[in-house]
């Protein structure tokens, strides 16, 4: 059964009826949406497009060939590369055979990758290109299990030994011809029929802010159930368009694009390359868009920088109307009353600024936009909303696949992550940690009973590791910080580092910030300046610099940052229970925190503990009262070579503000 809606065939209603594995959903879409576009890929200059029928055919062809390679129910198969239709098809194919697909971060260094592949007991790896093939062959003695490697792009692989290497396209071609034979078809259909929703369909390795990453096992039916809820919530239909640009290994991509795509039948477009995401985004103009806060952040930074070069008149107009937007934009979006004059000004602004701006950014057609992964600066958040982009926050994690809370249209706030998602339950531990039960929740970590138990409470709730509370006013969930990170100053005042860092990071000039203070007398922080923003400022002010390090150390840069820190302190002073956590002293790091040095996770989150250890000398200096400190750090370059850089880092005092001291953790009772 299917309902017709204005936006086209709304297939979500059909889900309940026994489509409990992805292969079944695919088959359904091929039947009901046959010739509607399912996937696009910008290749050879145009958006190559595959209909649901074709996708189904190709996936089936791959499946039968993988079967030929001996891929069995319960086996694992690795998928490594940028978002490519063929790689998504292999996922589908694997699931047809009841195998578990394990997407792996393509930018992981060979060592990291080898660990995951070994741990997941991978027998067959499907990769994008030569780069990945080389990684695998390089680590082959650590990966004895790998029997076959399939690749998408033949470039440069011509002269490789092809006994274990296979080009995907040849595979598909062969599979299609093989499926011409009824027996083969029957065999495949049998496999699909044998599939059970309760089987693990995908395993996502969470990069984990601590320790080695763990394989989160998700079952098909739960994934589909979760996706079905959110699809219904946001009324996604086969008329929607998304751009699949986030790492396939990340839950966000698997949920937003893969699961929701198969459930709702919308079209998923893969960018030409990482460099062209922006222009591809502009071309596609997705109607459903997800991006982590850092993306919105850097985007805003770039917007501001580009506007700096505009003519004075244009700049004035731009800022005037942005002001108007800040005043009325969100109200209009939330359907709150706005004076006629305001509506008029906003309309003009929309013609002159918002419309064109959204157009060049590729946001014109966004109907539903989400951000999550970490708290987003309120200013930043409302900036996009004020342009008329229906941007919402959600809170979730891999173990929950994905939603725990999600904001609904018309009731969106910057400082909360929204009410509970459909069919989700939440409770709080006495320490204020959030625990949840959700439709999509995982079945455990692969080969890691112990850690599974760590997070799985006796009553079947899952620990999020985040501290938060339900905001009495809105009834929305409010996340303060990682539970274990929320600390106390010796004075007893609360110290939520993330919370502070996010406030700092909203300033375009500040790229990354790491705050310290737990068990100390006062709060301090490291800061990474944003090279593009500050660099641009430096050019305009005729300040020459040779390197990040040089710019970071520049006195005038320190002035600017000090100003920002003071701003943050002011706002902290005004908030309940946060006043004590004002930053007293800070320093600007001599190098950018980098995933290759293990300072960030692959999803660009700070590895707090690691950083603290690595820069202990600097932290000591922050509390010793020294005004500068020498430090030597080992770094890893793109090509994997190691080297060291040393610097003398200046330490600055920050302006603080008086605050009304309140009794600690009173509204946490909620």
């Amino acid at each position, binding site marked *: 059964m299917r309902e017709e809606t204005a936006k086209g065939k709304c297939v979500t209603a059909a889900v309940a009826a026994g489509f409990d594995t992805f292969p079944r959903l695919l088959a359904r879409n091929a039947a009901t949406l046959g010739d509607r576009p399912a996937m696009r890929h910008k*290749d*050879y*200059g145009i958006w190559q497009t595959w209909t649901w029928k074709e996708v189904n055919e190709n996936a089936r062809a791959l499946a039968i060939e993988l079967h030929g390679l001996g891929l069995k129910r319960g086996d694992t198969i690795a998928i490594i590369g940028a978002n490519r239709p063929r790689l998504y098809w292999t996922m589908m194919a694997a699931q047809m055979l009841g195998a578990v697909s394990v997407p792996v971060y393509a930018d992981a260094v060979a060592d990291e990758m080898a660990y995951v592949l070994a741990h997941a007991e991978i027998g067959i790896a499907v990769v994008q290109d030569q780069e990945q093939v080389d990684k695998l062959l390089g680590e082959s003695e650590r990966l004895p299990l790998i029997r076959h490697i399939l690749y998408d792009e033949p*470039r*440069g692989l*011509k*002269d490789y030994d092809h006994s274990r290497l296979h080009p995907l396209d040849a595979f598909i071609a062969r599979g299609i011809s093989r499926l011409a034979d009824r027996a083969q078809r029957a065999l495949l259909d049998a496999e699909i029929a044998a599939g059970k929703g309760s089987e693990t369909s995908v395993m996502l390795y969470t990069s984990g802010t601590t320790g080695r990453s763990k394989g989160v096992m998700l079952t098909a039916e739960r994934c589909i159930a979760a996706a079905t809820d959110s699809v219904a919530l946001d009324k996604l239909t086969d008329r929607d368009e998304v751009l699949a640009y986030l790492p396939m290994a990340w839950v966000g991509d698997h949920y937003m694009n893969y699961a929701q795509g198969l459930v709702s039948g919308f079209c998923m477009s893969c960018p*030409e*390359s990482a*460099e*062209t995401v922006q222009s591809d985004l502009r071309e596609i103009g997705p109607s459903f868009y997800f991006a982590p806060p850092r993306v919105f952040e850097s985007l805003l930074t770039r917007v501001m920088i580009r506007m700096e070069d505009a003519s004075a008149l244009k700049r004035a107009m731009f800022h005037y109307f942005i002001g108007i937007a800040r005043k009325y934009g969100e109200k209009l979006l939330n359907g709150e009353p706005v004076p006629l004059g305001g509506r008029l000004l906003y309309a003009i602004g929309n013609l002159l600024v918002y419309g064109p701006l959204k157009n060049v950014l590729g946001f014109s057609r966004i109907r539903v936009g989400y951000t999550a992964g970490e708290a987003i600066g309120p200013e930043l958040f409302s900036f996009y909303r004020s342009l008329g982009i229906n941007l919402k926050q959600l809170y979730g994690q891999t173990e929950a696949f994905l939603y725990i809370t999600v904001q609904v249209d018309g009731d969106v706030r910057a400082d909360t992550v929204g009410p509970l998602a459909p069919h989700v339950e939440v409770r709080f531990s006495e320490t204020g940690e959030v625990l949840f039960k959700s439709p999509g929740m995982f079945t455990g970590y692969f080969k890691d009973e112990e850690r599974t138990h760590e997070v799985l409470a006796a009553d079947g709730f899952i620990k999020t590791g985040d501290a938060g509370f339900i905001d009495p006013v809105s009834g929305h969930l409010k996340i303060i910080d990682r539970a274990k990170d929320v600390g106390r100053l010796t004075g007893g005042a609360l110290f939520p580092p993330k919370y502070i860092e996010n406030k700092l990071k909203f300033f375009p000039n500040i790229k990354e910030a790491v705050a310290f203070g737990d068990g100390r007398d006062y709060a301090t922080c490291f800061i990474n300046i944003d090279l593009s923003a500050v660099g641009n400022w430096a050019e305009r002010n005729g300040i020459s610099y040779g390197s990040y390090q040089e710019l970071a150390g520049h006195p005038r840069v320190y002035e600017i940052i000090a100003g920002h820190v003071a701003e943050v302190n002011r706002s902290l002073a005004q908030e309940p229970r946060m006043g004590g956590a004002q930053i007293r002293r800070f320093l600007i790091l001599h190098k950018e925190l980098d995933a290759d040095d293990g300072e960030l996770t692959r999803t660009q989150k700070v590895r707090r503990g690691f950083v603290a250890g690595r820069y202990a000398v600097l932290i000591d200096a922050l509390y010793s009262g020294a005004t500068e400190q020498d430090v030597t750090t080992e770094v890893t370059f793109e090509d994997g070579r190691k080297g060291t850089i040393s610097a003398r880092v200046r330490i600055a005092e920050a302006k603080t503000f008086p605050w009304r001291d309140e009794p600690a953790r009173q509204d946490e009772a909620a």
Partner: protein
Amino acid sequence: MTNERERRQSNDIILAVEDVTLSFGGVRAITGVSFDIRKGEIRAIIGPNGAGKTSMLNVINGFYFPEEGRITFRGQTRQRMRPHVAASQGIARTFQNVALFKGMTTLDNIMVGRTLKMHKGLFWQIWRHGPALAEEVEHRKVAEEIIDFLEIQHIRKTPVGRLPYGLQKRVELGRALAMEPDLLLLDEPMAGMNLEEKEDMSRFIVDVNNQYGTTIALIEHDIGVVMDLSDRIVVLEYGRKIADGKPEVVKSDQRVIDAYLGVAH
């Protein structure tokens, strides 16, 4: 990799130059030079400035007419022929100082390389629908493959005049490739490039020879590049051939050392 190439290239001669002599108003540019190029090999022509290298290429693709000597390309011997004939027989080339069509985009430049392969006449062109358009699309596909091959997607629709030198050289190579030549003449493909660009370019040259099995004759000053790119090298000096053979042989040839390696750098 190298053994791969050796496997690919056979011993049959694709082009033979026999005691060619060329002069401009009495000035001798080339004197009685003979050498041959084997199918599928990368052949380098080196020599000090004014040794007649470029003139040699110009003779090969019919831009200059030699006074004496014969040129045999794929079995056909001739003394003089027009450049466009050479082109139609499968000889493409790039130029010492980039000779792109400045007013046109990267894509259009490459499409020009397809001209010889396009046949729909004025009548169809007028409508630019049906056959003409079909043909256009078909060749656009080829062009896009080349663009993809040379990794210049991002400048597809940029007028080449605005491109940096290194990219222009790459586009020019693309334009030549679009002709699907049997013999590709490269006149100092890496002149004025920085190290990284040089590495890219040599990778592309090897890949071309590899992927499409194109025979390549190139002039290059960077001895290092020449030595590890080419299968065989001809050395010219003052329009005369002073050495010919495998890199290692040429490198150790005394005359070459005196004439060139010694002084060039």
